């Protein structure tokens, strides 16, 4: 007996009682519909969640120079001067697992606008890639500085929201000039608000400028020797500083502030304080670490037995959160899906049992004209599967429609997942086979004489 003949018989049998068939499949329709809707909405939520965790820096790797030491005395983290912007470019060029990378120099200095001043949490000298690495590309106002600004050490900067509040009292700062250690910077953009990071530091209390400008015009030193009280060139006229002689003794004759601004950088050190690199995804982080390590060892000519002169740190905590959240979400959805499908399957089994009892005479007749037990088994099994697949198809339409409706009306993120649809089809067919088997088996075991006599 051919499969399509069986399917035809099954369809005819179902068409004989369309109302009941429909009510029966309703269980599967709702089950599969719920699964599809949950999967799509869940996938959307999961992606949104991933994105927001990623924007907290889950994919970001921080590469910092290692510890210099001399005669057994360690000078503390970040004291070697071997990390260069060229390292950053090499990482970007040679590590396929890295999406983007930005060199960074840091400074801490007083910022002045008009009669107001403020010492921001961080003044970062970097490249435009930093915004991409930190997932911060949408500015609240203005535009980011360009690679050309970096090349030319242009005195432009982008302000964080906290600075706008502190220095400008909410007035748009774009186009205004601020001074960092007496170097004037034109504000060309304002960052969008990011709030505090996981350690509670205000991430908006920041100024971004080309790293060349910060390095050569503002600090002129590496991070290790940056010191707020000595760095200010204005301290030559501030007699109070002499009361607190924290300043390091200067070996060279000091330039006046005019001389210094005319010749910004007598000696150009090209070391940077750190490199921030974004991996393609959180999964690729271990790979990215390996690639960066290889590239930097080669560039720094570190022998195999020598320790690295740099450290790579990932946001392990964030990554762990990310993966647990995603797993939890998936498992939760799976549980809901299983329950609704089992309920639907029990409905199918119930109605198939009723159907077998009701059609006992038909089964007897079919056996009398030559149907074997397995023909009957197959007929009822196919009937159950047809019911489930029809229900599954309707459920897919319903679920997809539902999730689209949610997207349109509530604006929730939704992701159509072909895998979920394929799973739903397979699962509904599976439910048909599992829950249709017992009734079908019962039917196939009927005695034709008894069945024909059944009233």
């Amino acid at each position, binding site marked *: *007996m*051919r499969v399509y*003949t069986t399917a035809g*018989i099954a369809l*005819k049998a179902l*068409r*004989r009682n369309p109302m009941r068939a429909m009510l029966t499949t309703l269980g599967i329709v709702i089950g599969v519909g719920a699964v599809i809707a949950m999967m799509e909405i869940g996938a959307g939520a999961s992606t949104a969640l991933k994105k927001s965790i990623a924007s907290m820096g889950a994919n970001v790797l921080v590469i910092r120079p290692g510890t210099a030491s001399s005669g057994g005395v360690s000078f503390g983290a970040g004291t070697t001067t071997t990390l260069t912007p060229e390292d950053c470019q090499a990482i970007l060029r040679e590590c396929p697992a890295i999406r983007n990378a930005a060199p960074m120099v840091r400074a801490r200095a007083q910022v002045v606008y008009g009669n107001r001043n403020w010492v921001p949490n961080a003044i970062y000298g970097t490249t435009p890639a930093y915004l991409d690495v930190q997932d911060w590309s949408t500015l609240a106002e203005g535009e980011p500085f360009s690679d050309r600004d970096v090349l030319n050490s242009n005195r432009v900067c982008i302000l964080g929201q906290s600075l706008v509040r502190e220095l400008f009292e909410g007035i748009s700062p774009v186009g205004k000039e601020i001074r960092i250690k007496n170097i004037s910077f034109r504000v060309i953009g304002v960052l969008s608000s990011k709030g505090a990071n996981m350690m509670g530091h205000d991430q908006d209390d920041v100024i971004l400028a080309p790293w060349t400008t910060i390095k050569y015009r503002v600090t002129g030193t590496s991070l290790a020797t940056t010191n707020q009280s000595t760095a200010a060139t204005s301290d030559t006229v501030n007699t109070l500083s002499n009361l607190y002689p924290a300043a390091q003794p200067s070996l060279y004759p000091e330039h006046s502030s005019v001389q210094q601004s005319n010749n910004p950088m007598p000696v150009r050190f090209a070391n940077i304080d750190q490199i921030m690199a974004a991996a393609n995804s959180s999964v690729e982080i271990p790979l990215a670490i390996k690639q960066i390590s290889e590239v930097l060892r080669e560039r720094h000519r570190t022998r195999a037995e020598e320790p690295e002169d740099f450290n790579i740190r990932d946001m392990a905590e964030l990554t762990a959160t990310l993966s647990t959240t995603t797993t939890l979400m998936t498992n939760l959805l799976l549980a809901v899906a299983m329950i609704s499908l089992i309920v639907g399957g029990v409905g199918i089994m119930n109605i198939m049992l009723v159907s077998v009892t009701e059609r006992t*005479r*038909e089964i*007897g*007749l*079919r*056996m*009398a*004209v*030559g*149907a*074997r*037990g*397995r*023909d009957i088994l197959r007929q009822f099994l196919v009937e159950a599967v047809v019911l489930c697949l029809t229900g599954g198809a309707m459920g897919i339409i319903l679920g997809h429609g539902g999730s689209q409706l949610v997207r349109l009306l509530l604006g929730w993120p939704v992701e159509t997942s072909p895998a979920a649809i394929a799973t739903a089809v397979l699962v509904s067919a599976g439910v048909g086979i599992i829950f249709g088997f017992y009734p079908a088996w019962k039917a196939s075991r009927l005695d*034709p*004489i008894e069945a*024909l006599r059944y009233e």
Partner: protein
Amino acid sequence: MELITLHGIEKTYQMGDISVPVLKGISLAIRQGELVALTGSSGSGKSTLMNILGCLDRPTAGEYWLEGQEISQLTADERALLRNRKLGFVFQSFNLLARTSALENVAMPLSYTVEELSSSEARKRATEMLCRVGLGDRLDHYPSQLSGGQQQRVAIARALINRPPVLFADEPTGNLDSRTSEEVLQMFEQLNAEDGITIIMVTHDPKVAGHARQIIRIEDGLILDNTTAGGPTPQTGEITL
């Protein structure tokens, strides 16, 4: 030529610890092309004998030869195949599938044949059969739209679709009035005479039994008497339907 030969057929049902013998040694022979009536009061065992003859049941003891093949020990699947190829059934209550057209009812046994017919061929054959029983204009009617006599004729067409040599009819006129009963019986006689189909009817109605040439009366699990009336010798030629 003997189409069916029974040799000491016994059937005993087990009701818990008690054995209930229903058939106590039946031996009979039915020639090809015979028109047989199987009569007896209720409880005599004629239905059980009919089930054994129709390969729906297996005898407890004895031999059953059908067309030179011993079939009393076949498995359920083998018997199903045999029923499909060699036997046709007509029931008292017609047993047509509700909400299924006459044509599809008639074509139904074709879906269990070994050699598979294409659906168009199956339709063609079912149409031919319905025309033969005089329902060529009722192909797409549902059983509920047909009279009792018409329904029984659809059932006969269904029984004959696989061109079986033997047709079993279990009280074929039990649910029909006397006029349509007569029509159905005439159809049986016609099929028997023209096509040489061996027909075995179970009936308790003497009028129906009167149409048969061979009358077998069962009483209490044994053959009471087995008479063959005179008349034309049954055809023994090839079955041509």
